[in-house]
């Protein structure tokens, strides 16, 4: 049996060890899981839903994770499960956006984007231009195609795991990756990116 002291938390602890401790009510271990995955969760949410409501969505993900931990059957698959929840939250948000998509949310997105750009003083103009193109390239994809591209190509999750996260056959994921890459490549080339 693993004894994880609240004060001695190391990177050597596996996800399943930490989950086991969380199930005993150890909040410190959950904090450690949060620190381990928060960047990936935020990044995925950001690529799928944009900057608005990012903090709220991230909080929703970790709340669902905390509440759902007792139901997690295979603790060794924690990261897959976490990504699944992240994708579900993003998907719910996309549907909400679709229902009440308004000028306000667009404006909010642009404001947040502008703040991000202004904050990043070190970025040169070309970098900002490319970032804008990548953002627009991802946005022009359907949510299904964007999901596989973000999870597989940007978050480095193997196709097999992406298939588990999205509940799809591996062949479907493969074909969606192929389609999404082609669509983004064509978009970028059309916008003048010649190095692809």
């Amino acid at each position, binding site marked *: 049996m693993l004894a994880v002291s609240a004060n001695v938390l190391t990177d050597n602890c596996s996800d399943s060890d930490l989950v086991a401790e969380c199930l005993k009510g150890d909040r410190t271990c959950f904090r450690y899981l949060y620190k381990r995955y928060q*960047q990936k969760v935020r*990044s995925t949410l950001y*690529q799928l839903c944009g900057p608005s409501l990012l*903090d709220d969505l*991230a909080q929703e993900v970790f*709340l669902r994770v905390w*509440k759902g931990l007792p139901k997690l059957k295979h603790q060794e698959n924690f990261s897959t499960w976490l990504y699944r929840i992240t994708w579900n939250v993003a998907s719910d948000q996309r549907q909400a956006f679709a229902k009440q998509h308004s000028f306000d949310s667009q404006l909010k997105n642009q404001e947040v984007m502008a703040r991000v750009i202004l904050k990043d003083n070190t970025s040169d103009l070309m970098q900002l231009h490319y970032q804008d193109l*990548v953002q627009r390239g991802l946005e022009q994809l359907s949510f299904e195609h964007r999901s596989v591209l973000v999870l597989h190509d*940007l978050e480095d999750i193997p196709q097999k795991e992406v298939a588990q996260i999205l509940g799809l056959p591996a062949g479907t994921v493969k074909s969606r990756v192929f389609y999404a890459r082609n669509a983004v490549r064509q978009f970028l080339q059309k916008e003048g990116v010649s*190095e692809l």
Partner: protein
Amino acid sequence: MNNPSSDQELVNFLKQHRPNLPEAAPDFEQKLFAAIDRNEAGARKLNYLGKSQFTLSSKRSRMIGFRKWVFPSAIAAGLLVFGSGYRAFQTAQLPDNETAKLEAFLVTNWEGVLHDSSEKNMTDSSQTDWLSFSQSADSEPLTNN
């Protein structure tokens, strides 16, 4: 089909130029764990079953309460209805002497009916002539000659 190196170039480009992730609010972590605490407190308040269940949502604990009380009650009510219905269909058990009296009455009554009908047959045989005719006709041996 695209060649793998072309795909890799695209992936590298996307990774290199993906928009910078906005930083989380400084108090994000605090807010998250405060929300978890609130959730826990709410779950404990609603967890009236007295079991030490970990992180129950209020909805879930309500569901468990519902299952705990409704299903046994439904089963008990079903058994009660079945039992009472079964009893209603059961014949009443009479004492032995009452049974004997009832049997005697039925026999007497039945004999009376039979007796009446035989007397009636004797006085009014026209109604049954066709029967005796057919019987006598049947009683004669059939011959092909």
